[in-house]
């Protein structure tokens, strides 16, 4: 039989050696400008990708064939686990997820090398080399402290199976890969930033490249965050979707800085400003992805002092310090080339809006980061254990989020450079009126909570400005090509993907923010113990317990409850079956809540307790969650907009100017170095 331990370890070692050599060759090729060596570096990147693909394939084979001599399989595999969950248990524990991580990194590196084999000749050797340096870090962990291919002897007959939380819902096959694709992808713009600093060519090129390579990981990260919230909602059984848990915050922080960059990069493209700022955002985003991995993977959250017990925490800390010092060093070294050729022309301009947008994004990053690490700081310095509750995060993020929402309506409608006040008044009169009307209407129907009133008003304002942008764009299309209606809309989207994709993303964000606001303000819950045949009422629902039952499944034992749901008027709406799943490797049952969605609200049932002898009664928590379905719809809209914005197109740059009816369109000459 094939020795999978050896094969896997050999692949990882090959990837490590390949990455080391390629990094060396790449930097040398960039430094000495040897095109022939560039080719060698590029092939080295492909080699590393193939080695990691081999390692991944070996691991999947080991998992699916239940080869318990492989240490990772022995720790997460089980003959009873269904094949789907066995395949995705690759990312159900530390070693496997670092393998997956390393493979994604190698895949991104190969993709970047291949896609840019004929472009950016000066930067690409450095980009390839930098990607490989990041690779060396992850591959070292795979060879050393997190080797998933360790040899287990004697070979156990069966394993415990993956963490029950991670084999309880099919979304587990989607949420982590999306997050990883987002997280790891942030290394690419970082590599371009490093390459730009090393070549000293800090003009337009690196900005264009890093913007292009930032968008896909940003889209993956956005979808990953929404999928994570959805998973949390469908699996954890507490009826919420976001708890400001450090693990959640870890995914949110780089998203914030990446989003800031996607906006500030436009200021540099148009006005040549914010050079150092943009470099810092890209580097900060990458650092935050490392920090997030460190936070969730090193065990530091359990206790500040726990993480030093393993090697993984210190290695991570060392690499993060290295990246930070190297980034700051490079920026300082090139500071003479980083002065801005452009200046702010007027306070009332789109660049001002973007500067404040960035200020708010970074402020939000800082407040979330502080709340996340505050317990660690206190424990390290004072020894007392504290936690920072969700109310802190809600309290600081709500006003900042609201301000950002408002800016979302202002920024895109202001011209670059200098605003003409009459035009500003005309542009904003209608949207502001709509926003005020929405707020007034919200007040009129009796809502007295501050945030919903403000949020709905801001949402009305933003949506009106977006609609206005579309209207003006379509009018321009009609002037140019004579297209009308849907055809004009199609042409508009097809020819200005980045701009209108951005507006679609904004629309999705508005939907999410409104849904968040509604679900937070009007959620209510009731918990009751019900006998079979009896019912409780919550909102407009009557929830009647029909039966408590048990079922043996191969990998788990399920205790379920069947509830008949009817409306207040007595119409039958169907049945819901919340259950508790008992896994042999877990002392605690894992809940599967039942969710009944309608456009207006979710009815969410969690089985809390049951009569274990005769199944005569069950304790259920019922939650009415208004607006929640729109969170997922908003997430999809964001994803669609991002795809629209990323979709490769050859004609964007020439067509952009004709469809922008602002005089700013004429200012494109300002772009890049003078």
């Amino acid at each position, binding site marked *: 039989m094939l020795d999978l331990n050896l094969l896997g370890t050999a692949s990882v070692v090959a990837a490590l050696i390949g990455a080391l050599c390629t990094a060396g060759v790449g930097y040398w090729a960039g430094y000495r400008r040897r095109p022939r060596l560039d080719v060698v570096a590029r092939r080295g990147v492909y080699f590393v990708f193939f080695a990691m693909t081999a390692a991944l394939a070996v691991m999947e084979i080991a998992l699916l064939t239940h080869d318990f001599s492989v240490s990772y399989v022995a720790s997460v595999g089980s003959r009873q686990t269904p094949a789907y969950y066995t395949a995705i248990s690759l990312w159900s524990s530390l070693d496997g997820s670092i393998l997956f991580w390393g493979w994604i990194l190698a895949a991104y590196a190969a993709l970047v090398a291949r896609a840019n084999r004929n472009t950016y000749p000066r930067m690409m050797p450095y980009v390839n080399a930098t990607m490989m340096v990041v690779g060396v870090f992850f591959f070292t962990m795979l060879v050393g402290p997190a080797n998933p291919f360790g040899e287990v002897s004697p070979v156990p007959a069966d394993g415990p199976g993956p963490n029950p939380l991670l084999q309880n819902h099919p979304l587990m096959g989607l949420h982590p890969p999306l997050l990883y694709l987002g997280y790891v992808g942030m290394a690419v713009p970082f590599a371009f930033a490093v390459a730009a600093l090393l070549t000293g060519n800090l003009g337009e090129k690196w900005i264009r490249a890093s913007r292009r390579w930032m968008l896909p990981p940003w889209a993956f990260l956005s979808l990953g965050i929404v999928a994570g919230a959805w998973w949390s909602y469908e699996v954890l059984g507490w009826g919420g979707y976001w708890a400001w848990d450090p693990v959640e915050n870890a995914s949110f922080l780089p998203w914030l800085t990446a989003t800031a960059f996607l906006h500030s990069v436009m200021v540099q493209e148009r006005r040549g400003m914010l050079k150092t700022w943009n470099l810092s955002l890209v580097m900060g985003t990458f650092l935050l992805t490392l920090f997030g991995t460190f936070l969730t993977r090193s065990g530091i959250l359990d206790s500040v002092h726990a993480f030093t017990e393993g090697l993984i925490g210190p290695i991570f800390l060392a690499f993060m310090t290295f990246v930070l010092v190297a980034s700051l060093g490079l920026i300082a070294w090139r500071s003479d080339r980083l002065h801005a050729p452009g200046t702010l022309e007027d306070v009332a301009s789109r660049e*001002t809006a973007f500067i404040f947008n960035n*200020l708010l994004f970074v402020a939000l990053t800082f407040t979330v980061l502080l709340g996340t690490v505050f317990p660690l700081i206190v424990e390290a310095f004072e020894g007392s254990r504290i936690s920072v509750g969700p109310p802190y995060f809600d309290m600081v993020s709500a006003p900042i989020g609201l301000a950002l929402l408002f800016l979302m309506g202002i920024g895109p409608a202001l011209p670059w450079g200098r605003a003409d006040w009459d035009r500003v008044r005309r542009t904003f009169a209608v949207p502001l009126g709509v926003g005020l009307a929405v707020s007034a209407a919200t007040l009129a129907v009796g809502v007295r909570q501050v945030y919903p009133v403000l949020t709905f008003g801001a949402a009305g304002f933003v949506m009106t400005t977006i609609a206005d942008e579309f209207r003006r764009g379509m009018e321009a299309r009609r002037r140019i090509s004579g297209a009308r209606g849907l055809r004009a809309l199609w042409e508009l989207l097809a020819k200005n993907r980045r701009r209108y994709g951005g507006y679609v993303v904004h629309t999705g964000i508005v939907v999410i923010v409104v849904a968040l606001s509604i679900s937070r303000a009007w959620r209510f819950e009731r918990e009751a113990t019900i006998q079979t045949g009896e019912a409780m009422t919550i909102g407009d629902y009557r929830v009647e317990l029909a039966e408590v039952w048990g079922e043996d499944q191969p990998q788990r034992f399920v205790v379920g409850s069947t509830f008949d749901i009817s409306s207040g008027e007595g119409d039958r709406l169907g049945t819901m079956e919340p259950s508790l799943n008992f896994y042999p490797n877990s002392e605690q049952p894992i809940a599967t809540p039942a969710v009944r969605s309608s456009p207006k609200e979710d009815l969410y049932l969690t089985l809390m307790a049951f009569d274990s002898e005769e199944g005569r009664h069950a304790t259920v928590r019922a939650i009415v969650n208004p607006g929640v379905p729109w969170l997922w719809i908003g997430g999809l809209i964001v994803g669609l907009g991002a795809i629209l914005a990323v979709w490769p197109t050859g004609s964007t740059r020439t067509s952009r100017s004709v469809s922008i009816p602002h005089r700013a369109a004429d200012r494109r000459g300002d772009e890049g170095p003078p």
Partner: protein
Amino acid sequence: MSNRKSRKRLWMGLGIAAVVGAVALLVTGGLKDNVVFFLTPSELEAKGADVYDQPLRLGGQVKPGTVDWDAEASELEFVLRDDSSQVRVHSDGAPPSMFQAGIGVVVEGHYSRDGVFRSDRVMVKHSNEYSAPKEGEHPQEAYRTLIEKNGQ
């Protein structure tokens, strides 16, 4: 000309300072009100009156034989202990499904003046990291009657 430029700078500076100041206020105020201390029963005993009515998290083990769950009133009472000390806990709402005597739990709430910890949230302690599972119990056996009732 330079006058216009400096006024522009002034406005931007004022705007940025206002944002930074507001965020700083939010953060300090938010942190002050929302830091929850995590204590063990012995630490709680030592602090006693100092922490009355403060938001707290208390972690310990559910003392066997002390759990009193009133399903009608949806009230739960039990004693939480550590090696040297114990505290009576009163909680509204059903215990989490895995709640049982002897298990480690964290309760969130406050220590009231009558010496009872009033909790609004009981969480069964579970590790965040995917530690190797211990020898678990076999719920199949415990709840076998539910299967038999279904005629399976």
